[in-house]
């Protein structure tokens, strides 16, 4: 197994699509009320568009592309904070690549770099730590971004910095947690989602237990799904089967990667380094309680927010944006008032147009061919 093409077998896909069709046919889904399945994670959204999965599904299934793209849900004010930090004398600001293009109210990090700020793209927080070692006279800031998937690597880097006694490294912590966010979506009045594809890599860290409330309290089925196209089709089939059989369970399709108990060393590092924030601001979804983390007091000297005066800019989402409604499945991306006109990947207004994993940007760029042609 090279894990490159094995999970992309077209013949197996066809069999799964037939199974899904048979299943849906046995469920008498009304035409004006298709089944809405939300994939929570941006990685799934990417695969769905990359392989054209939406177009292979029967009309009665609508995929709602959820909030799990960390770049998309980053509020504009936070980008302004990043730019302000990056523009400080003596700072090397390090970030994952796809955060470079996210627009702030004044500029993106890409523009800040063009204007002379020392902004560098890294592939791991350890690369940022290496920069700190190599540049002892500069302050190296790592832009910690992402869900539980990237949280442990940032935590381990902080622990390593502590072990080595590195003085010029800090984390601008914008890590967010997925569970309160799913809860916020489930609590929202215009929500009408029938089932979920659960995040794969987040679950690899946190395990399956934290999702139990979705089945227990909200009576919605969830299947934790892998990222290959066959994983996604199989997981969809599993969700649909639960709906048809009237079951609500948290199932794990991605068992080859996700242990039910999660990853103990990663969770230990996360628990040691971070504490929950009271609330965190999300683009498109507003403020969500306990949805972000920051560094514990013991690691305050590695916390950018505590060693620099970070402006803490708060900027409301543009009024015309309907990102929140798209996220909850209330409208489809192309039904937004500004989709493709005021809001495009070149000039994104809303969160979901920002990263290629965002529902609107993915729809605009890759396009679900069949759906879009039908819509036009």
């Amino acid at each position: 197994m090279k894990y490159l093409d094995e999970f992309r077998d077209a013949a197996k896909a066809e069999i799964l699509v037939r199974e899904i069709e048979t299943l849906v046919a046995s469920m008498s889904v009304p035409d004006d009320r298709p089944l809405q399945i939300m994939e929570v994670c941006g990685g799934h959204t990417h695969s769905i568009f990359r392989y054209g999965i939406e177009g292979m599904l029967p009309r009665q299934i609508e995929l709602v592309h959820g909030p799990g793209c960390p770049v998309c849900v980053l509020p504009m004010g936070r980008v302004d904070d990043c730019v302000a930090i990056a523009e400080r004398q003596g700072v090397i600001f390090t970030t994952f690549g796809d955060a470079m293009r996210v627009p702030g109210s004044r500029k993106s990090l890409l523009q800040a770099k063009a204007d002379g700020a020392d902004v560098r793209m890294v592939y791991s927080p350890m690369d940022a730590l290496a920069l700190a070692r190599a540049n002892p006279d500069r302050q190296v800031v790592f832009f910690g971004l992402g869900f539980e998937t990237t949280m442990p690597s940032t935590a381990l880097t902080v622990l390593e910095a502590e072990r080595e006694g590195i003085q010029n490294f800090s984390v601008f912590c914008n890590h967010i947690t997925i569970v309160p966010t799913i809860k916020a979506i489930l609590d929202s009045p215009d929500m009408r989602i029938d089932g979920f594809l659960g995040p794969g890599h987040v679950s690899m860290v946190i395990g399956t237990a934290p999702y139990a409330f979705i089945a227990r309290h909200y009576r919605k089925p969830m299947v934790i799904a892998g990222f290959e196209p066959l994983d996604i089709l199989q997981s969809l089939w599993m969700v649909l089967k639960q709906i048809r059989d009237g079951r609500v369970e948290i199932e794990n399709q991605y068992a080859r990667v996700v242990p039910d108990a999660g990853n103990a060393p990663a969770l230990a590092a996360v628990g040691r380094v971070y504490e929950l924030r009271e609330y965190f601001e999300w683009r498109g979804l507003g403020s969500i309680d306990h949805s972000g983390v920051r560094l514990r007091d013991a690691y305050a000297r590695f916390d950018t927010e505590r060693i620099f005066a970070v402006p803490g800019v708060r900027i409301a989402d543009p009024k015309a944006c309907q990102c929140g409604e798209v996220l909850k499945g209330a409208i489809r991306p192309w039904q937004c008032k500004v989709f493709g006109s005021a809001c495009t990947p070149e000039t994104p207004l809303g969160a979901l147009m920002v990263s290629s994993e965002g529902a609107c940007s993915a729809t605009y760029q890759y396009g679900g061919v069949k759906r879009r042609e039908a819509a036009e």
Partner: protein
Amino acid sequence: MNVARGMTPRALGEVRAPSVTLAHGGGGKAMKDLIDDVFVRAFDNDALATLEDQARVDLAGLTSRGDRLAFTTDSFVVDPLFFPGGDIGRLAVCGTVNDLAVGGARPLFLSCAAIVEEGTPVDLLRKVASSMAEAAADAGVEIVTGDTKVVHKGACDKLFVTTSGVGVIPKGVDLGAHRAREGDAVLVSGLLGDHGAAILCARGDMALETPVASDCAPLHDLVRSLLAAAPGVRSLRDATRGGVATVLNEIAAASLVAIEIEEAATPIREEVKAFCEILGLDPLYLANEGKLVAIAPRNEAPAALDAMRAHPLGRGASIVGRVVVGEPGRVTMRTIFGGRRIVDMLVGEQLPRIC
């Protein structure tokens, strides 16, 4: 060849300093020595050696080869300067030669303008110049005129090179992005994305070691074989920055046609695929420096494919798709998974994804 010959050979100047200083750009003896030592010596042709302000080209020698002049220019700012499979010098020659070749032109003469950052080792320049000379010999062109500027530290990144090129298009050859017609076949000349992957790896900041070399090569001879076997070929483009995806979008837009490609038929090396998987990049948008896209009428597609495959630079050629009925300008791909997706132009450059 058909460059008007100069008068007398003269002794070439030499640089003794290990690295370039602003003095080498000052217009005096130091500059003349640098140009002699690095460029004139490497490029070794009479037209350049006379150091006139221009190369002089015999018109009769051009008109005997065709009825139109092709003229192009390209700048090269690659980082790093040396990478597996090539360097900025080879790239600067092949890039411009290929821009001429895909117009059906026989490439003949190049210029070379170098912008050098002070402090750059002279040996580095010598290496680049000799690589340019070698690539020019491979491509059958002469570098007949040039310019050198030295800028302050930090004003450029070691070395920027601009080459312009002149070639002649034989009578009857008429290639254009606007000429694709419904039913035509879409071909590529080999494995895609090697150059882009090699450069990203050579930058060394992602701790991935992928054994891929740049495909940097002059395509004029491949084009000649291709056009001899399939004279009806409508359009050729070298798939450089933006990759095959961008070229197909340009052709679809210029011809007002739709193009559909088959993911299963796009030739991409396993290593490049794996590299793209890890970083979340799409190989269709990675740069190539020795691959072309050809649009051929359906009945000439097999001959075009055979001709490319018979050439050392086209062994991995493949028919990847066709021109179809559909929304003008739209490029779609049938995925290996059986789905269909749009292959659009990129907004900016591809950035690696977080997770």
